[in-house]
C-alpha cells in the first residue's frame, strides 16, 4: 500500500518520535540503576595511610588477605586509582589477585591546595617508598613486584632505580620514557603551557585543565555538541553496554587536580627537549636515579593505538633498561588495562610476575575481561 505524502510524513514522524523516546527511556534506565561510583570493585583493607594516600590490600571472597607474592599497583597520581580495579569482571588488580598474588594498590587520593607542593621526591622517596616498606612488613617478603601504569610507571621506575633491592619484578604499562617523542599527553601539556608551570610557586592545576589536555588528544571530545551527540547515538546500545560506558565515564570524567610542582619537575626533567631519563640525568630530590641500577626483570607494555603515551616513547626503554622485555599490544591507553584489549595484557602480566609459573591454584576464570567500553572521549583518546 502506498501512503499519501502527508501520511508518509506522519509515519516517519511517529518513527522518529518512537526512537527518540526509546533512547530517553534507555537513558532513564541507566541513570536510575546503580552505577559505579569509583569505590573500587574488590573488597580491600587499608594497610597504610599518609596524607591522601591509602594503601589498599585486596582481600579474597572470604575477606581474607592472600598469601602469595606481594604485588604493588601504582596508578598515575593525576587520575583515579580505580581504573585498575574497575568493576567485578573488569578488574586488572582483581585478576592478578585471583591468580594468587597478594595485591596492593596505591590510591593517591585527590590532592588539595597544600598538595601543590608535592614533587617527585614526595611521591617516589616518600609515599611509594613507605608503601613498599609497609608491604614488606605486612607480607614478610623481602621484595615486592611492582606494576606501574602510565605516570605511575615512571614513579615505579625511579623508585626501582633508587631501591633495586626491594623490587622483585617491575611491569611498566604505557609508561613513556622518551620525552622527545612527539605527541602524547606530555607533549600536549607542554604545548598548552606546562612549560610555564612554576616549581617554586606551584599551583594546584585544576581538574578541568588536566582534563582539557586529555581532550586535546581526542579531537571533538572537548565539544559539548560532540559529546552530547555521541551519547545520544550510544543510547541505542543495550543497557549492560551503557552501564559499562557509565563505569568508564566515572573514571574518564572524574579527573583529579594535579600538584603543579610535580608537573613542573616532570617537565623540567623529562619533558620535550629535556629527556632526563634517556640521557641518564634523572634525579629524585637530591639523589641521582641511576636507571642502570634497575637490574630486576622488567616488562614494558605499550599500546599500538595509545595517543596518551605514544608507543615509540614507551618502547624506547629498551635503550636504558636493556633487559626489559618489550611488548606492544593492540588497543589504546585505557583499553589495554580495562577494555577489550585487556585480554592480551592481564595473563601476560600474571605470567611475568610469576616468572612464567603463575599460581597453579589460580582462579582467573571468574574475573574475565569484560566487554570493554569507554565513553567517546576515552575511546577517541585510545585512538
Amino acid at each position, binding site marked *: 500500500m502506498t501512503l499519501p505524502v502527508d501520511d508518509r510524513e506522519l509515519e516517519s514522524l511517529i518513527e522518529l518520535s518512537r526512537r527518540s523516546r526509546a533512547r530517553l527511556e534507555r537513558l532513564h534506565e541507566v541513570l536510575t540503576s546503580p552505577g559505579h561510583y569509583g569505590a573500587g570493585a574488590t573488597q580491600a583493607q587499608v594497610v597504610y595511610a599518609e596524607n591522601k594516600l591509602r594503601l589498599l590490600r585486596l582481600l579474597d571472597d572470604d575477606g581474607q588477605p592472600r598469601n602469595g607474592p606481594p604485588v604493588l599497583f601504582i596508578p598515575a597520581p593525576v587520575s583515579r586509582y580505580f581504573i585498575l580495579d574497575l568493576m567485578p569482571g573488569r578488574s586488572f588488580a582483581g585478576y592478578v589477585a585471583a591468580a594468587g598474588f597478594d595485591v596492593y594498590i596505591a590510591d593517591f587520593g585527590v590532592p588539595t591546595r597544600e598538595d601543590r607542593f608535592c614533587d617527585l621526591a614526595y611521591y617516589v622517596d616518600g609515599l611509594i617508598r613507605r608503601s613498599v616498606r609497609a608491604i614488606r612488613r605486612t607480607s614478610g617478603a623481602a621484595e615486592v613486584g611492582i606494576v606501574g601504569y602510565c605516570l605511575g610507571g615512571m614513579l615505579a621506575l625511579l623508585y626501582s632505580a633508587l631501591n633495586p633491592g626491594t623490587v622483585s619484578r617491575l611491569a611498566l604499562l604505557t609508561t613513556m620514557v622518551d620525552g622527545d617523542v612527539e605527541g602524547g599527553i606530555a607533549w600536549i601539556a607542554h604545548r598548552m603551557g606546562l612549560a610555564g608551570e612554576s616549581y617554586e610557586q606551584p599551583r594546584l592545576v585544576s581538574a578541568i585543565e588536566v582534563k582539557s589536555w586529555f581532550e586535546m588528544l581526542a579531537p571533538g571530545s572537548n565539544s559539548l555538541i560532540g559529546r*552530547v551527540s555521541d551519547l545520544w547515538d550510544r543510547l541505542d546500545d543495550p543497557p549492560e553496554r551503557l552501564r559499562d560506558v557509565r563505569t568508564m565515564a566515572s573514571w574518564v570524567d572524574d579527573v583529579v587536580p594535579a600538584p603543579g610542582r610535580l608537573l613542573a619537575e616532570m617537565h623540567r626533567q623529562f619533558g620535550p627537549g629535556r629527556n632526563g631519563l634517556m640521557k641518564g640525568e634523572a634525579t629524585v630530590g637530591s639523589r641521582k636515579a641511576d636507571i642502570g641500577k634497575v637490574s630486576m626483570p622488567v616488562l614494558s607494555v605499550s599500546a599500538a593505538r595509545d595517543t596518551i603515551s605514544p608507543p615509540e616513547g614507551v618502547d624506547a626503554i629498551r635503550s636504558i633498561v636493556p633487559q626489559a622485555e618489550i611488548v606492544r599490544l593492540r588497543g589504546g591507553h585505557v583499553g589495554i588495562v580495562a577494555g577489550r584489549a585487556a585480554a592480551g595484557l592481564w595473563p601476560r602480566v600474571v605470567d611475568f610476575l610469576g616468572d612464567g609459573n603463575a599460581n597453579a591454584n589460580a582462579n582467573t576464570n571468574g574475573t574475565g575481561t569484560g566487554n570493554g567500553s569507554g565513553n567517546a572521549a576515552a575511546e577517541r583518546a585510545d585512538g
Partner: protein
Amino acid sequence: MADETPNPEPTLVERWLEEQREWQKTTLAYLDSIVRDEEFLTHLGNAMRGSLLAGKPYPTPVPPAASAPESDFADRLDQVLFAVRELQGQVADLRMTLDEIRAEQGKSGTDANPAAGNSDEGDASDRAQRPDRMQRVDR
C-alpha cells in the same frame, strides 16, 4: 458461530495519539525520578553535558575568583600544612623502624626476617633531604 473480526490496524492518527501518551509516561518517569532521587538531577545534568559520570557533577571551569592568586598568608599556611604532611611521613618511617627493631629483639636476633629487619634503603635519603625540606618551608 460469530465471525472473528481481526483487530484492525490502528490508524496513523491513533498511533500518533498513542505515541503522545507514551511520551507523557516517559516525562512522568523523569519527573518522578527527579522528585525521588536528589542525585538523579546531577546525573541528568551530566548526561546533558554528554557524560554518564555517576555520583558527582561533571567538572566545570574554576570561576576566575577561585583561581585568583593566593594571599601571602594563605600561601604560607599551605606551605606549613604541607610541611606537616612531610613530617607525618617521616614519623611513619620512624615508627616502622621502631617496629622492626622491636620485632628483631623479639626474635632474639636468631631467626629475624631479613625483609622486616632490613634498614630501608630510603631511610638515609629521607634523613638527607630533611634540611632541604625545612628550607623550602621557611621560604
